[in-house]
């Protein structure tokens, strides 16, 4: 029945948001002729699903979700390795040398600012992380809860690169009076920033660019001390039924052609190759990136989040 018809198609669990996943995967379909079915699942549910389905995988590929999640998937034996030749020219912190996961794009974390609200409360545009500690921004910032969102955890690990662990916790404590709410989801802040229910939100930036495109008065600032970033990755699931096409997808998306499509399709994602044309994106060279060791980040996650819950949240 249905299964027979769709067996030919590559089944993708996409943790890239629907519209952008559609753009990227359509480009892939056009260039390679491979049929693709995909379903949107944000990274948490996707991992839960993949884990629950391990004995009978429903999908071939997990597309999107930060690299850290793909490390977990690898450790739990949910994925299988594939060494693509396309990784030549890609910076090694973006991929797994064993070939379990591969980069799709990267997103720097930034501060999204609703300029209308900023004017309303007569505050100035921040340039640094220190700037947003200003009392004029009292209850005017949202960022996600690290307990529920990988975005917020990236923020913590990034800040640790700048301030050291205690310094980062201390910084977030000082930031606490300016927080309107910690949102449950990683993209929550943009939903309040766009329609002007808060002045600033801290999260990965594509959603802010999306709001800009739609005409919301939103600007994005990358603080000059540096920002963490996420690498959205892709893995082939263990037991994938359509292995050939899955490998084709990996080959394509890491290749120069695939990366150029990330820009051309107006996804507002940053390519992981430097040999592509960045178009209208703020050049990567002007943003200071803070690399975080994913293994260290994963090992310390529970402990750091506990610290955040106990030391930052009560303020």
């Amino acid at each position, binding site marked *: 029945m249905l299964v027979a018809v769709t067996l030919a198609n590559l089944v993708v669990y996409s943790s890239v948001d629907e519209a952008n996943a559609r753009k990227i995967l359509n480009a892939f379909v056009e260039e390679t002729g491979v049929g693709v079915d995909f379903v949107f699942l944000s990274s*948490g549910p996707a991992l839960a699903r993949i884990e629950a389905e391990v004995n009978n995988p429903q999908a071939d590929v997990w597309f999107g979700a930060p690299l850290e999640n793909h490390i977990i998937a690898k450790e739990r034996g949910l994925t299988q390795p594939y060494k693509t030749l396309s990784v030549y020219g890609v910076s090694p912190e973006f991929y797994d040398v064993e070939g379990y996961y591969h980069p799709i794009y990267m997103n720097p974390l930034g501060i999204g600012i609703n300029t209308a609200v900023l004017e309303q409360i007569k505050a100035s545009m921040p340039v640094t992380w220190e700037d947003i500690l200003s009392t004029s921004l009292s209850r005017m910032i949202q960022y996600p809860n690290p307990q529920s969102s990988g975005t917020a955890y990236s923020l913590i690990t990034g800040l640790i690169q700048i301030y050291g662990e205690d310094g980062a916790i201390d910084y977030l404590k000082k930031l606490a009076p300016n927080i309107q709410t910690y949102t449950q989801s990683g993209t929550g802040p943009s939903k309040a920033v766009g329609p002007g229910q808060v002045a600033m939100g801290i999260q990965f930036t594509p959603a802010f660019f999306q709001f800009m495109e739609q005409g919301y*008065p939103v600007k994005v600032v990358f603080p000059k001390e540096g920002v963490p970033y996420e690498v959205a990755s892709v893995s082939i699931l263990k037991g994938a039924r359509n292995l050939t096409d899955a490998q084709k997808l990996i080959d394509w998306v890491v290749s120069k052609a695939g990366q150029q499509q990330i820009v051309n399709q107006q996804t507002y994602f940053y390519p992981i190759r430097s040999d592509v044309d960045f178009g209208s994106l703020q050049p990567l060279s002007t943003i200071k990136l803070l690399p975080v060791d994913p293994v260290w980040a994963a090992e310390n996650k529970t402990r750091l989040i506990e610290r955040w819950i106990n030391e930052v949240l009560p303020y």
Partner: protein
Amino acid sequence: MAFRSEETRNRLLNLLKDPVLLLTIIIIFAALAIFIVYPIFKVFSASLIDKNGQFDLSAYTKAFSNRYMRQGFFNSLLVAGLTAFFGMLIGYIFAYTINRTDIPLKGFFRTVAVLPIVFPPFIGALSIIMLFGFNGFITAGIFGIRNFPVYGLWGLMMAQVVCFFPVAFITLDGVIGTISPTLEDAAFNLGANRWQAFRKVILPMSIPGIASTMLVLFIESLADFGNPLILAGSKFPVLSVQAYLQITGMYDTRGGAALAVWLLFPSIVAFIIQKYWVGKKKYVTVTGKPTTSVLKSVNRPVKWLLFSLCMLMAAFTLAIYATIFWGAFVKAWGMNNTLTLENFRYVFDVGLEAIKDTLIIAFTSTPISALLGMVIAFLLVRKIFPGRRLMEFTSLLSFAVPGTVIGIGYILAFNTKPFLLTGTLAILVLNFVFRYVPVGIQSGVALLNQVDPAIEEAAYTLGADNRQVFTRVTLPLIVPAFFSALVFAFVRAMTAISAAIFLVSARWNLITVQILSQSDSGRLSEACAFSVILIAMIMAFILVLKIFLKNKVSLSGSESMGQG
């Protein structure tokens, strides 16, 4: 004792003489075991058994050694309690005002009071923020308040009260509507003033209804997921969201399952109290002709006070919907009010498949759910068979189980042989069928209890077997319950999210999941447009049914249960 065994033997012989009945009972038991009990069992076992297959309680001790999680547990109870109280109160005011005063616009109030049954997930909560946030149209726009605590207890409670007070209204409308006005006449006659008549007559008679309503709201609030995800914020953790986040944010299925089990306890306790204690008490003892006495229950000032309160609530409810519609038709919600149809073009471009899938799933699952509800109601009310109580309990159980738990249970249970269902249409349909069947059972049982059993007995003596009695007599008689169940299951299937989010697949997707993913990626207006389409489709469905059945169906005909 010898006598009893002979009776049992006779009873069994009787049952065996009726293979259709026997088979139906067996099939229903099997289905309930597989699609309700087994997934819940899977969640329990997932939380109790570690990776190596060893029994292990650490997930529980871990979850509750954490102050934050304990806080979540108490917050859940707190917000559930408050929602239950205020939801009931507003529902009661609506029901009382509509039934006991001669205010104008009764039809309008009735409609508004049931409207939030169609509360689009996430977007409903977001529009609360649009109304009460920093630049909220009500708080900032009207009152100039900038720091209204919309995130946390108050915002969440407000959303839940709006979302669930229709349940209260529908139940209490039925309760107050059947208290004969002549009782108040009698009270006046005996020298009571209006307040005394209310306090000594109307209020005591509606106590079971009030208690039952509050317990139902309590359960709904505990299970609610869409509203707290947006509105609770991290300073006010609630357990349903924490369980979800534990699984989806910390990648800890065992811990999440343990939290879910904790959530299950108060829910089941409330359910048992509602079912077996409050539910036993008759709401009203009055039967016979509804006497239309001249309404004089309240004096003029009180009447207009009640009218104003209802109007306020109605305005609030409508404001939420207006906000959603407004979001769907403008370029940038709250920022750029240029009218546009672009959002809908986008929705039909990106979401057409999801809309089709949603309709297919809803249209498949709702008639099955409603019919199954009627069959189970018939068996429960009219048949005596071993395990009848058990069937009743399990069939209503899924109402008390939060959607997140059921969703996790379904993927755990139906991903391996012999029940290999993940990724299929069937898993979504089955989930919806069994999640929303309690609604059908409840309304079927309620209606069947009002139908003289002699009518069916007459059919038996005229030679009809069980199947013929059910199809030719029972079903035609409880057709209103059938259609309320149909409407309700349809609404819930269209707006479900918490369980469904785990069950959608590449081939079968839902509008609600689209709303979530669109708003996650910053396309709020598109998410609003999806919501508008969702509301429009549900309204169209109800309208068609109404026209088709000549107004015999309404949302208020059903006792609502089980939030998606």
